[in-house]
C-alpha cells in the first residue's frame, strides 16, 4: 500500500435537522485498502457513505480526495461538474438495489459502455469489445450482451452493476450493502467475485454492511458505528476476534450464534 492516503476524512458530521445522521467521523483510506462500515440499522452507515461520496453534503467536517494529478481536493469545494466527472471516472458506486445503479431498459452492453461513452469514446466496436470483456470478468455469458437487465436474476444484475462501475478503471468504489437483497448462495458467489476484482485491480473500497461475515471476507479494516458515531475501528481480524467495546462484543457474539 502506498504511503499517501486516497481519502482523508476529518471530523465529519451530518445532521438531519436536530436528528443525528453521523457525527465526528475521522479516518484515512489508502489505495488498495478495503474498509467495512458495520453497525445495526439506523446507526449512520449510509449517511456516512453518502457524505464520503458527495451524495450528501456533511453539516461539518472535511472530506479530501487525492486526485490523479497528485493534489488533494476538498470535495465540498469542487464544482458539481468536477464531482460528477469524478463519480463516473475515478469512482464507482454500487447500490444495494441494482435498479438504482443500472439503466433497466437498455442492454447490458450499453449499461457497461455508458461510462466509456460519457468520457468520449466514440468507437462502437471498441466500446462493445470492452463491454463484452467486462461481462466475462463478472461471469455473465457474453451472449447476454444485448439483453436488458430486466431479464437478469438479482445476482446477475448486481454483477452487471459492478462491471458498469469498473469499466473506467476507478481507484475507489463505494458499496452500500452490495449483497443485501440476495440469497445466501448467490451472496457467496458475489463476495468471491468482488474479492477477486478488488484484489486484481488494486481497488480501494468503502463497503457498508450490517453483515459481519461480509466484512470478514472483504475488508482489511473495519469501523463499528452506533448512534451515528464510530465506537471502534481497527484491522478486521482484530476487531472480530478480539472486540474491545461491549457493543462490538455483543454484535460479534450475536453473529456467532446464528
Amino acid at each position, binding site marked *: 500500500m502506498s504511503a499517501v492516503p486516497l481519502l482523508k476524512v476529518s471530523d465529519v458530521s451530518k445532521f438531519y435537522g436536530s436528528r443525528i445522521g453521523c457525527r465526528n467521523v475521522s479516518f484515512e483510506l489508502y489505495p488498495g485498502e478495503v474498509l467495512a462500515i458495520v453497525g445495526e440499522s439506523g446507526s449512520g452507515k449510509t449517511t456516512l457513505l453518502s457524505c464520503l461520496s458527495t451524495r450528501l453534503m456533511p453539516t461539518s467536517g472535511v472530506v479530501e480526495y487525492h486526485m490523479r494529478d497528485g493534489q488533494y481536493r476538498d470535495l465540498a469545494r469542487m464544482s*458539481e*461538474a468536477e464531482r*460528477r466527472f469524478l463519480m463516473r471516472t475515478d469512482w464507482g458506486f454500487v447500490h444495494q438495489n441494482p435498479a438504482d445503479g443500472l*439503466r433497466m*431498459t*437498455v*442492454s447490458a*452492453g*450499453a449499461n457497461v*459502455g*455508458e*461510462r466509456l*461513452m*460519457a*468520457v468520449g469514446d*466514440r*468507437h*462502437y*466496436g471498441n*466500446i*462493445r469489445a470492452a463491454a463484452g470483456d467486462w461481462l466475462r470478468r463478472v461471469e455473465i455469458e457474453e451472449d447476454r*450482451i*444485448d439483453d436488458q437487465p430486466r431479464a437478469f436474476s438479482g445476482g446477475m444484475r448486481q454483477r452487471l452493476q459492478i462491471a458498469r462501475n469498473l469499466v473506467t478503471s476507478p481507484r475507489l468504489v463505494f458499496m452500500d450493502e452490495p449483497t443485501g437483497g440476495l440469497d445466501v448462495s448467490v451472496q457467496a458467489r458475489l463476495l468471491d467475485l468482488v474479492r477477486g476484482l478488488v484484489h486484481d485491480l488494486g481497488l480501494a473500497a468503502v463497503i457498508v454492511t450490517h453483515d459481519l461475515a461480509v466484512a470478514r471476507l472483504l475488508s482489511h479494516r473495519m469501523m463499528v458505528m452506533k448512534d451515528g458515531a464510530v465506537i471502534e475501528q481497527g484491522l478486521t481480524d482484530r476487531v472480530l476476534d478480539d472486540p474491545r467495546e461491549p457493543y462490538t462484543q455483543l454484535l460479534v457474539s450475536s453473529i456467532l450464534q446464528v
Partner: protein
Amino acid sequence: MNDLANYNFAYLDEQTKRMIRRAILKAIAIPGYQVPFASREMPMPYGWGTGGVQVTASILGPSDVLKVIDQGADDTTNAVSIRAFFQKVANVAVTTRTADATIIQTRHRIPEEKLGEGQTLVYQVPIPEPLRFLEPRETETRKMHALEEYGLMHVKLYEDIARNGHIATTYAYPVKVEGRYVMDPSPTPKFDNPKMHMSEALQLFGAGREKRIYAVPPYTEVVSLDFEDHPFEVQKFDRPCALCGAENVYLDEVVLDDKGGRMFVCSDTDHCEDRRAHGHAGAMLAPAAKESQEAAE
C-alpha cells in the same frame, strides 16, 4: 365591424408576443438551448403545432409571406388550417412557393430548395428534449445539458446499432449545435439534417405542450451524432421521383391501386410541381404526358 377587428394582429396580444420574442432572442443567443416560455392556449389542440404557431405569430409582420407545410406538402389538413388561420387573424400573403416565402412553418420537413438569408423556418416540435428517451427526470436532463454530459445520447445510438446492425434512427436524429448543446431537430427525417448545417436561414423551434423554444441562427454548425465506425449517413433512394424525375430528394411512397402498385414521389410538393412546370418528367408522368399530347393532336 369585420372579423379581423375581433383579434389582435396575428391572434396573440402584444404582451404575449413580447414575452415570446424575448424567449426567441435568448434562444438565438444560445444556439440549441431550450428556453422555457409561457405557452398560451391556442384555438387548436396540442399536437397541431401550437408551439410553431405561437412562434410564427410573434415574428409575423404585415409584409411577410407565409408558407406552411406538413410532411413537405402544402395541401394537407394541418398545413391548410394553419395557413387559413394566419390569413384570417393577420391577413398576410400566403404562398406555396418556397423561394417566395419569408416565413415557412413546417412539420416534418425542410424544403428541398436551399433557403436563403432573410428567410425563417419555424418548426413545430412535439418533444424538444433529446435526452428524454433515456432519462425521464427533467431536473436531471437540465443538469446534463448544463454540464455537457451527453454520453447518454450515444447510449441510444449504441442500442440502435446493437439491435439493428446500424444506426436505425431515421427521424428526430440528434445533432450537436455549435459544438455545445445537443438538440432534437423535431420529427424531420435525418435526410434533412445536413440542410440545417450552416443554413443561411434562421431556424426557430416551438414546442407548445412542453413550453420550450430553441433556435439555430444562420451560419451555425449543426453536426449529427455518430460513431467513428458507424458514421452518420442520410437515407438514399434507389430511384428518382416518379413524377418529376428529381434525384437526391426525399421521397414518399404512394399506393396506386389495390394490386400492389405504388410509386415514389417527392415529399416536397412545391419542389415537385416547380420541376414539372419547368419540363422535368419522371417515369410515371412521361407516358401520361405523351398520351395527353397524342389525344390533343
